[in-house]
C-alpha cells in the first residue's frame, strides 16, 4: 500500500470527525477546550466564525457532529454533548460587541439583494457587510429569522436568543425591509442590484389529500403554517384530542406545541416502525417525556366528518416484513382503525415554491420545478443570482443554510469583483506541537470515563403554563466541567516522523485501544489483517507510514478508536510521535476575492 499523504489537508480534518461532519466545519474540540478553560467568550467567537448563530444552534442544531463523534463509538451512542456545550459558550459569554466584525465606513459601491431574513441570507450579510457591500434584506413577514422563528417553538428557542444573534448581523448596517414580500424577480433585477441571493426557504407544508379533507378543513392544519400562526399569536388554542400526522422534527414541534395550547391527548401517527422515523432521537425523547404517544404502523386512510365537523380519522394498520438488511420488503394491511380527535396537524414534509420568479428571466428550473444551482458556488444559471438554504436544494437544516450562506457569499464577492466564482481557495491545515514538557501537553490528555451528562429540564407542570417557557435549563457548572473532559481532543493529532522511529514498540505496547501496529507493508487485505486490533470501521482510513529505517516495516494507525491521550508520544524515546494541534483553515469571503486572497483572518483562541 502507498504511504498516507498527510500533507493533504483533508487527512487530518477527517480525523476530527465532528468538524468533518459539520457542514460549516466548526472547530468543535477547540471551543470545548476553551470552555474547559473558562474562556466562554473565546469559545463563542470560535463558533461564531463558522456557524454564525452559536446561541441558536446550541439549542436547535440538527447536530450532525454528534452521531459522528468518536466518543459515541466508545460510549455506545453517547457522544460528547457538543451541541449543548455550544449553548454553554453562548450562555456564559461576556459582551462580544467589541469582537464582532464591523462594516467599513467606506462602502465598495456594490449592492446585494437578499430574499428572506432566515439563516442563509443572514449569513451572506454577515460575510459581505464587513467587506463594504450594501445588503438589502427583503422579508415577507414582520419578523426576522425565517423558519428559525416561525417553525421552532419558543419553548425550544426563546425570541431573546434569536433577536440577539440576528441583531449582531443587522447592526453592521443591513437594510432590513420587513413585511416586504418579493413579488417579482424581474422587478428586483431591474433595480440594478449587483447580485441577488435567494434564501427564501421551503415555506410550503405538504398537503394530505384524502377523502374528507375539505369538509374537515376547519380542524385540519398544515404543520409549518400552523406553527407560524402560533409564533405570531394568531392561534392560541387547539382541541383536547390532537393527531399529528408524520414523525419528523416538525411533527415533534407540533405535538409539543399542541400540549401548550390546551391539548390533553396528543398522538403522533407514524406510517413506519421506529428506526424509520425522520425525527432526531433526542427530539423524540423530549416529546415522549411530555407524554406524547407515538403510534407506529398506522397509515392515514380518510378523515371522518360528522355534521360538518371533524370526528376523527381512519387508519390502516400495517405490518411490515423486513429483509436481513432491515429494509422493508413487504407491507400488508391487517386492519382498519378509527381514532377520534378534535384536530389534526399535518407534518409530512415541505416544498419549495418560487411563484415570484418569472421563468423567462434567465434562471433555469429543473426537476421538481427547482432552480438549477451549482452545488459548490450556489450560482444559478443566471450569473448574478445565487441560491442558498432550503431554497437551493430543498429542506435541510439551519447549519446547512449557514454553510450555503458562507459559500454563496464567497461567490457573490468573487462575482462582484469580476473573478471566476469557481476558482476558490482550498481548505488548509496548520499543525502546532502541544508538547509543553517531558510529560506535559497543552491540552487535558487524560481520559474522562464519565457518561454523557443529561440536560436538566423544567418540571413537566411548570413548562406547560406558558408557551415560551424554555424547557432546557442548560448545563450546570459541574455538568460542564465533566462534559468538556469527555471530549477526546481529536484535533490534537498523532503526527509520526518515520526517520526518528527506532521500532522499540513502546507506542504499540502503551496504546489503550491497540490502534498502533508495526508490520510489513503489502496489499490492503493483508495489511488490514495485521492490525493489532481489527479495523471495525471500514469507513475510517488508517495511517500508513513510509518504510521504517531498520526493518523496512511500516507504522500503521487505525484512527477509529484513538483516544488522543498522547501516551504513544509520551512513551516514544525519540519523539517520532508528537501530539500536534491541527487548525483547519476554512476560507470565507473575507479571504477571497479582490485579488488579495492572501492572508487568513486571525483565528480567535
Amino acid at each position: 500500500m502507498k504511504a498516507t499523504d498527510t500533507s493533504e489537508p483533508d487527512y487530518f480534518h477527517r480525523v476530527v470527525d465532528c468538524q468533518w461532519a459539520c457542514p460549516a466545519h466548526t472547530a468543535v474540540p477547540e471551543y470545548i477546550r476553551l470552555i474547559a478553560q473558562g474562556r466562554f467568550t473565546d469559545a463563542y467567537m470560535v463558533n461564531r466564525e463558522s456557524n454564525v448563530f452559536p446561541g441558536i444552534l446550541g439549542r436547535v442544531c440538527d447536530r450532525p457532529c454528534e452521531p459522528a463523534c468518536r466518543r459515541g463509538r466508545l460510549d455506545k451512542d453517547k457522544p460528547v454533548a457538543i451541541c449543548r456545550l455550544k449553548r454553554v459558550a453562548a450562555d456564559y459569554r461576556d459582551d462580544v460587541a467589541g469582537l464582532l466584525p464591523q462594516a467599513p465606513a467606506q462602502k465598495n459601491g456594490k449592492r446585494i439583494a437578499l430574499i428572506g431574513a432566515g439563516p442563509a441570507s443572514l449569513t451572506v450579510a454577515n460575510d459581505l457587510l464587513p467587506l463594504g457591500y450594501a445588503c438589502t434584506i427583503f422579508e415577507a413577514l414582520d419578523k426576522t429569522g425565517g423558519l428559525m422563528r416561525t417553525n421552532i417553538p419558543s419553548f425550544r428557542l426563546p425570541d431573546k436568543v434569536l433577536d440577539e444573534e440576528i441583531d449582531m448581523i443587522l447592526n453592521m448596517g443591513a437594510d432590513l425591509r420587513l413585511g416586504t414580500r418579493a413579488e417579482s424577480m424581474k422587478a428586483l433585477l431591474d433595480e440594478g442590484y449587483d447580485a441577488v441571493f435567494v434564501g427564501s426557504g421551503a415555506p410550503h407544508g405538504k398537503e394530505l389529500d384524502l377523502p374528507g379533507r375539505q369538509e374537515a378543513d376547519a380542524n385540519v392544519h398544515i404543520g409549518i403554517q400552523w406553527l407560524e400562526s402560533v409564533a405570531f399569536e394568531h392561534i392560541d388554542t387547539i382541541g383536547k384530542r390532537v393527531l399529528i400526522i408524520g414523525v419528523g422534527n416538525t411533527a415533534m414541534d407540533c405535538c409539543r406545541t399542541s400540549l401548550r395550547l390546551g391539548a390533553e391527548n396528543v398522538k403522533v401517527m407514524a406510517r413506519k416502525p421506529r428506526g424509520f422515523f425522520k425525527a432526531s432521537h433526542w427530539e423524540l425523547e423530549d416529546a415522549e417525556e411530555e407524554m406524547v404517544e407515538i403510534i407506529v404502523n398506522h397509515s392515514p386512510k380518510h378523515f371522518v366528518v360528522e355534521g360538518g365537523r371533524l370526528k376523527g380519522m381512519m387508519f390502516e394498520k400495517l405490518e411490515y416484513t423486513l429483509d436481513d438488511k432491515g429494509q422493508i420488503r413487504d407491507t400488508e394491511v391487517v386492519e382498519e382503525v378509527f381514532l377520534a380527535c378534535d384536530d389534526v396537524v399535518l407534518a409530512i414534509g415541505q416544498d419549495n415554491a418560487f411563484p415570484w420568479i418569472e421563468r423567462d428571466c434567465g434562471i433555469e428550473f429543473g426537476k421538481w420545478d427547482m432552480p438549477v444551482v451549482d452545488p459548490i458556488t450556489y450560482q444559478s444559471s443566471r450569473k448574478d443570482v445565487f441560491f442558498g438554504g432550503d431554497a437551493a436544494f430543498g429542506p435541510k437544516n439551519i447549519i446547512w443554510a449557514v454553510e450555503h450562506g458562507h459559500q454563496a457569499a464567497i461567490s457573490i464577492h468573487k462575482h462582484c469583483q469580476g473573478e471566476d466564482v469557481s476558482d476558490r481557495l482550498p481548505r488548509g491545515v496548520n499543525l502546532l506541537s502541544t508538547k509543553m514538557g517531558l510529560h506535559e501537553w497543552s491540552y487535558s490528555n487524560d481520559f474522562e470515563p464519565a457518561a454523557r451528562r443529561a440536560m436538566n429540564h423544567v418540571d413537566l407542570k411548570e413548562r406547560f403554563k406558558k408557551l415560551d417557557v424554555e424547557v432546557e435549563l442548560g448545563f450546570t457548572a459541574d455538568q460542564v466541567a465533566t462534559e468538556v473532559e469527555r471530549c477526546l481532543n481529536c484535533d490534537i493529532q498523532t503526527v509520526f516522523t518515520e526517520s526518528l522511529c527506532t521500532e522499540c514498540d513502546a507506542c504499540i505496547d502503551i496504546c489503550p485501544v491497540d490502534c498502533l501496529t508495526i508490520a510489513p507493508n503489502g496489499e490492503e487485505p493483508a495489511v488490514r489483517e495485521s492490525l493489532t486490533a481489527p479495523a471495525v470501521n471500514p469507513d475510517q482510513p488508517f495511517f500508513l507510514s513510509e518504510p521504517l529505517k531498520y526493518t523496512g516495516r511500516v507504522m500503521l494507525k487505525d484512527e477509529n478508536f484513538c483516544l488522543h491521550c498522547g501516551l504513544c508520544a509520551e512513551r516514544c524515546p525519540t519523539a517520532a510521535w508528537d501530539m500536534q494541534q491541527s487548525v483547519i483553515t476554512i476560507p470565507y469571503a473575507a479571504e477571497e476575492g479582490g485579488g488579495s486572497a492572501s492572508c487568513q483572518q486571525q483565528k480567535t483562541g
Partner: protein
Amino acid sequence: MSFIRKPRVPYEGQEVNALGRTRADYEGFMSTLCAGCGHDSVTAAITRAFFELSIPPHRAVKISGIGCSSKTTAYFLGQSHGNNTAHGRMPSIATGTQAANAGLHCIGVSGDGDTLSIGLGQFAHAIRRNVNMLYVIENNGVYGLTKGQFSASAALGAKPKKGEANVQMPIDPVKTALALGASFIARSFSGDKAQLVPLIKAGLSHKGFALIDVLSPCVTFNDHEDSTMSYAYAYQNLQPAADADFIDPNREEIVTDYDQGDIIPVTLHDGSKILLKKAEEDYDPRDLGRAFDYVMRHQEQGQIVTGLLYIDETLPDMHEGNKTVGTPLVDLPFEDLCPGSDALASLQERYR
C-alpha cells in the same frame, strides 16, 4: 514513564480470552522505566502470553530481584501475587514458591546484573534443581538503575556512551545454561514479539527450568551508535535458529503435518505442543553439542542467535527428582501435612 495512567477503555472488537478477560486485565501499574525501554516491551509480551494462555491471574506468581528489569513485575499481572526479593536472590524465592505450591505458574524476571553477577550462583542452582519456572533475563549489558556501568554480559571491547571500553570477558547466559544442563533454553529480542510471545508461552508450559534470555535495549545508556545491544544492532544482527510455534490443545486444533523435515514437534507434559521450525538444516535443538556449536559459530560472526535453542522435555523437575510431594501444600489434608508427634518421633528414630 508517563504522568497519566493508561486508561482502561473497552472497545468494539477487543480480544477476549477463554476466561472472558481482556489483555488489560493482565496489565499492572504504569511503568516508571524510561520511555522506549526494551523491558516495557518484554512486559507487554509477558502480559500477552498469560492472556493468551488464559491463566487465571491468581494462579500466577511473579518473582524478581533488583534492577530495572526486576521492577517490571509490578507492571504486569496486577492481580497476581509476587515478591520483589533481594539482589540476585530471585531463584531462591522462586524455588521456595515451587516447593510449597507447584500448582502456580511461576515467572521470575531478572536482569543481566541480577543474574550474571550477584545472582550467578543462585541462577546455576535453580538450573541444577530444574525448578519448574520461567526465568526471563532482560539483558541490556548495563546497570541502568545506577547510571549505565557495564554488567557481566557486556561484550569485550564494548563501548559505553561515555568513558572507557569494557575490558572483561562477558558471561553469556545461554552458553552458561547449556553448560549447566538447563532443560529449556531460548534467546529472543524485545522488539520481536512474534517470536517472544510463543517462547514465553512455551516456557510457561514447559515442566522444568525454562530460560529466555531477552536482548532488551537500554534506551538511555546502551542504545548508541557503537553499542552491540542497541535496537539498531539487534535488528541488523538477529539470526533466528529455530522459531517456536506454541500450540495450546485447549484452544487450537493441531493441523500441521509433522513429517516435514524442518519441523520438530515437541509435546509438553500438559499435552501442549511446540512446533520447532528450523531455520537451518544443521540445527538440532535436541542435540546439546550441536546447539552449543551453532551458538558459538554465529557469535564469532557477530550474530545473535535467537529462538528456542535447546529443549529436553524429559528431564525430571525438582519435585520429581527429589521425590518431594508435588501436590501444593495448601491442598494436602492436614493429617498428611502434619502427621503428628508419633510420626515425628519415628522419623527421628531413623537417624539415631
